[in-house]
């Protein structure tokens, strides 16, 4: 399984270095931002929403330059990109020297998953990070129960039953004729649900293409797929400028 990625946001370089070191030693990948503005840029860039490198947790200081950690959390909550993607904001743990009751309550109100005061014990930070990630994973798995993999080749999502072996698709009980590529594309979208997949990414992974197939081909296949999926067609979401996604 890929390493989980943790974004550390603190304007104190030393703290970032200390946390990075211990988190990496504990088996995580780390990213560092020294301001809320820098962090938001990282989080809202296409790379974070795309399959390859989502951010799994944010360790967030509060008192920073222009924008505070609290303001950043608020901005994230109202960010349309995250809402539509269905991934949801990564869980947030506030890690701050501000430990007065009002700030703590405000943090939780803004959706924080945990709140650690500075000075902190590194062992405690590691333990809480692991706990929050466990909770988040459990939540994600619960949401995933809508999709089941039955046997090696069959994927079920609500009324959709795709069978890779016999290249068949049933939508709400009715069989739909599909081409091989359409089945493969659908399977790929389903197994990567909630992630935004660029045309380039799809060309590489579904078409195995070396440039002989055009991106336009992807668009056409998506259109056909949407039509064939009937009421589930709208689950295939276009993220303008980024790519496609099967939304759950």
């Amino acid at each position, binding site marked *: 399984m890929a390493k989980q990625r943790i974004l550390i946001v603190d304007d104190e370089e*030393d703290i970032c270095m*200390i*946390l990075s070191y*211990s988190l990496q030693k504990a088996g995580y990948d780390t990213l560092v931002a*020294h301001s809320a503005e820098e962090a938001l840029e990282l989080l809202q860039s296409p790379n974070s929403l795309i399959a390859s490198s989502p951010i799994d947790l944010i360790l967030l200081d509060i008192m920073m*330059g222009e924008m505070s950690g609290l303001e950043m959390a608020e901005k994230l909550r109202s960010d349309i990109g995250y809402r539509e993607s269905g991934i949801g904001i990564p869980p947030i743990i506030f890690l701050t*020297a501000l430990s007065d009751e009002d700030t703590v309550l405000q943090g939780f109100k803004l959706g924080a998953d945990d709140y650690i005061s*500075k000075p902190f014990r*590194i062992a405690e930070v590691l333990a809480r990070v692991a706990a929050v990630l466990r909770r988040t994973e459990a939540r994600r798995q619960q949401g995933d129960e809508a999709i089941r993999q039955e046997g090696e080749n069959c994927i079920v999502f609500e009324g959709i039953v795709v069978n890779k072996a016999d290249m068949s698709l049933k939508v709400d009980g009715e069989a739909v004729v599909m081409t091989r590529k359409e089945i493969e594309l659908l399977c790929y979208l389903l197994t990567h649900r909630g992630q935004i997949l660029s045309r380039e990414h799809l060309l590489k992974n579904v078409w195995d293409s070396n440039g002989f197939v055009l991106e336009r081909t992807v668009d056409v296949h998506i259109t056909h797929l949407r039509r064939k999926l009937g009421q589930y067609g709208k689950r295939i979401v276009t993220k303008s400028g980024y790519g496609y996604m099967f939304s759950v």
Partner: protein
Amino acid sequence: MNIWIIIGIGVVAIVGVCYAIYKRKINHAREQQRLTLTQNISHELKTPVASIRGALETILMHPDMDEEQRKQFIERAYQQSGRLANLVEDISTINKLDTQTDFYTRLQLDLHTVVENVVQDLSLRAMQAGAAITHNIPKHLIISGNYTLLYSIFHNIVDNALNYVEKAEISIQLINQDPANLYFSISDNGQGLPNEALAHIFERFYRVDKGRSRKVGGTGLGLSIVKHAVIFHGGNITAVNRQEGGLEYKFSLARRSK
């Protein structure tokens, strides 16, 4: 006669009540200020402490850490402990200025000596930074004041200029005097400051450039101490952007203050 006595009592009563309300408002505002300051101080102290403990804890947790990495962590912890020491010093000063001003005694002092000492103490740094500090304070400029605080006034302002202005040209001047007061100006040839910042720079822990401030070991209290020290000596201080560019601090000091 009676009516006048009644009116007299009534006026006194009203004045008394107004005064009580006013006093309560002032106390509440001061209480709020003190609460904010306590929170700020707490936050400012906890931050370097967190770095020191974090660095040391990491070293203890990973005895197999490579030498280069360990050295880095130790250096950081050491630097942060210096920052902490400075903070404790400045907070103590601010505290004393706030609550125990009689802790600071006054003597007859020659400001020429004070300024000469400041320039002398900062000359090495100035040289290393390619900066120049000049003054026109005449000899035998006598003031009744506290040496430490007067020193802080000139030192902290010049120190700021050295930290934030490239190859600064810093000028300390006595621009005017009258029987009661002395008027000074300390200016540099830097970028000056944005106007919104000018209103706040004497506030505790206010920084225009937080990252830079930390790098140069700033505590955020330097100018606040300056302001308090100026007030202690019966004067006041403002900061303005010069027309020819750069920042100028203008302040007055009473020859005899209580």
